[in-house]
């Protein structure tokens, strides 16, 4: 009934890899997302995560985002969360996590916030 979870590649950009996330971000999909993000990080690329189409995020999903953000910070790459859906926005605000995450209102803003690689 809801959209199945998937991760699509966004537009190619020299500044960052862009991933578009669809569907429910629960414990199973969170692992999937974390692996995909780790892959981007291992390439030394910055990452823009478009969360506009995330219909639901569980604690495990938020945890994965937080963990990924920490990993990027440690490795010196940049992570931008872009276009949060109401579900994601609600949980991040509930836990006051926006201080630990770089959030932009749109994919373009996210790219714009990154210096050219």
């Amino acid at each position, binding site marked *: 009934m809801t959209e199945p979870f998937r991760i699509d590649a966004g537009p190619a950009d020299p500044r960052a890899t862009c991933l578009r996330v669809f569907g429910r971000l629960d414990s199973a999909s969170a692992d999937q997302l974390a692996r995909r993000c780790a892959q981007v990080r291992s390439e030394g690329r910055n990452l823009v995560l478009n969360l506009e189409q995330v219909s639901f995020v569980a604690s495990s999903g938020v945890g994965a985002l937080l963990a990924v953000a920490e990993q990027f910070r440690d490795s010196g790459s940049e992570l931008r969360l872009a276009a949060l859906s109401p579900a994601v926005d609600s*949980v991040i605000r509930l836990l006051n996590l926006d201080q*630990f995450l770089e959030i932009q209102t749109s994919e373009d803003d996210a790219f714009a916030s990154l210096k050219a690689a």
Partner: protein
Amino acid sequence: MGAPARASHDVATPEPPSRPELALVPPAAAPARATAPPTLATGAPPRRAIVSIRWIVTFTSVALIAAAVVAMAVVSERNSRAALTREVENRLLLQAHNLALAGGDAMLSDFPELTLHPLALEIAAKQPELALVEVVDPDGKIVGDPDARKIGAAFALTDAFRPRLGRALAAGDRLLSDGRTLVATVPVVHRDGRRLGTAYVGLKLSYLDGVVLAARRQATIVLLIVLALGVLAALWMISVVLRPISALRAGIERIGRGDLTTPVTLRDRTELGMLADAMNGMTGALRRAQAELVERERLSRELELARQIQESLLPKQPHVAGAFRVQGSHRAALEVGGDYYDYFALPDGRIGLAIADVSGKGLAGCMVMSMLSALLRAYRRATSSPAELLAALDEQLGGTLRTGSFVTMFYGILDPRTGELVYASAGHNPLLVYRRDGGRLESFPTRGIPLGAMRGGVIRRTLQDRTLRLAPGDLLVQYTDGINEAFDPEGKEQFGVERLEQAITSTATAGADAVLASVRGAVEAWTGDSPPQDDETLIVVACEAAVRGASVPDAAPATLDPVALVATARATGQRLQVVADPASLAAIGPWIERGPLGSGRDRNSIEVMIVALHELCDNALEHGHGNAPTARIELWCVPPSPVATDARLRGGWFLMRDHGKPFMAAGWRATDFNDPNARTRGRGFGLDIIHRGASMVSYHPGTSEGNVTVLTFGERALNPNEEARP
């Protein structure tokens, strides 16, 4: 321990294991041979001034003999003096008669003096003691006298002479005395009857005294001889009598010095012989009693050691893990008993609970208990099945226990994270569990037979692992029969399980400490001053009520009635069944949106409700049911009701109901997101979402309707940005 009687040991407040009532041997009864002469000879007795029986008897007998002899002498002297006087009087009269007879013829001659003088002279010469020999003519002139010069002189007795009374005399005879001289007068009569004169014969009375004196001297000599003989006889007799007494005295002194082996040998057929026999009997009894005392002292010293070992095997401190507090109490019987209990952390974080009662007391019971303790230590890590463990103990103990002796034992493993207790019982008392929800006490009897009761592993068929859950506020009590079988001072009625249950129920909400104190107090009040006949052992496991306050925002005061709320939800709410499947969890969102609380709120607060309920169900499925495909969770959404009895519920509420392991809110702490490690970990935020999202979360695990959780979402959830940042 208390005064004699009672020593009790509470793990909460460990006391030094001193047992004054067990002082092994009263000091006065110290072994006689070991410490030389005891009481009898401790300190030289004051040397008393002895008055020997020998001298008492001697003096007494001498005095008696002397008194008897003197009395006899006095009486006999009086008699002999009277007899002597009479004899002297008779002699005087006879002399006087002789003189008168001879004088009768002479007086008729012309010169009577010629005849009478030689006659008088002859008499006086023969009897020099005579003071007077006279013949006087009727004219009063002396005609016959030993002294010729007195012849012709006048003679008369002075007036001082009085007749002696009390004597019958011949006619004309007279006896006169002036106190110094005794005179007999006889008339000189002619054959024809004419009176021719008077014959006088006199005697100094002092002569009489001399004779009496001589007799007295004789009597005195006899007296002295008799006395001397008497003294000798008395001394000899006393020596004979005293000889056995000194033997007895020597015997008593030997006993006093502690020598109980040498008998008093006395061949005596008097009462003293009986006394000696009695003394020998006494020393024999004393010797046996002494040996018995030494033996008893040795035994009680060993028992004291055994008791110390037993005490050392028991836990000293309460054990606290998560919301659980485990505490035990042990009150030892006067005689060392066979109760055992222990609790300990297992490697996986669970808590092992053991309580056992060895049949039989004394050293045997204590040794079995020690063995049990060692075996338990060896096996407790090997298996997580209490029934398995008990069966293994049975196998080991079975060969060692004497026929007829056995051990009842309870063993349980408590998971402090879930409150789940897996347990098995080998013939031990039913487990008592107080449920805060409903305030009642449940009893869990089991079917296992005691350890060592039957050989050949029969026990395996009777043992089984059972499971129960402890919810916050619940309390578990396991005990030994020393508690419920404690007798009142009259020994008529036992304390009983009912009183035990009352003691638990009355204080169950106050925690483990209070319950221990309550039960012990009740048992002690029941038994009064009589010392415990059996070990009284008690273990209490308390699950402290849900943690409230800082760490869990707005946890509800436990005033909600979960069972009633389930009924209300059934009557007025909407239901969603959730199973361990992502699709099922995904249905929570649309169910909320279409439900009675999904309208009239902004998107954000609806998202918060969705994620909070999702987390709640996810937790229950994962931790309560292990994501079992058969697990069923019920969600209820109850619409707002202005007449709800609890103001917090008027805006509508959610209820989750499941039958998995109850969730323990206790011990949860809000995540500190400022900690980079917490962020990197990236998991375990579910409770943060629930507690931040809901305005009230109220957990009611283990109710008759299963685990019930009630949530409300109020204004706070609508404006999460207003929350103060940590």
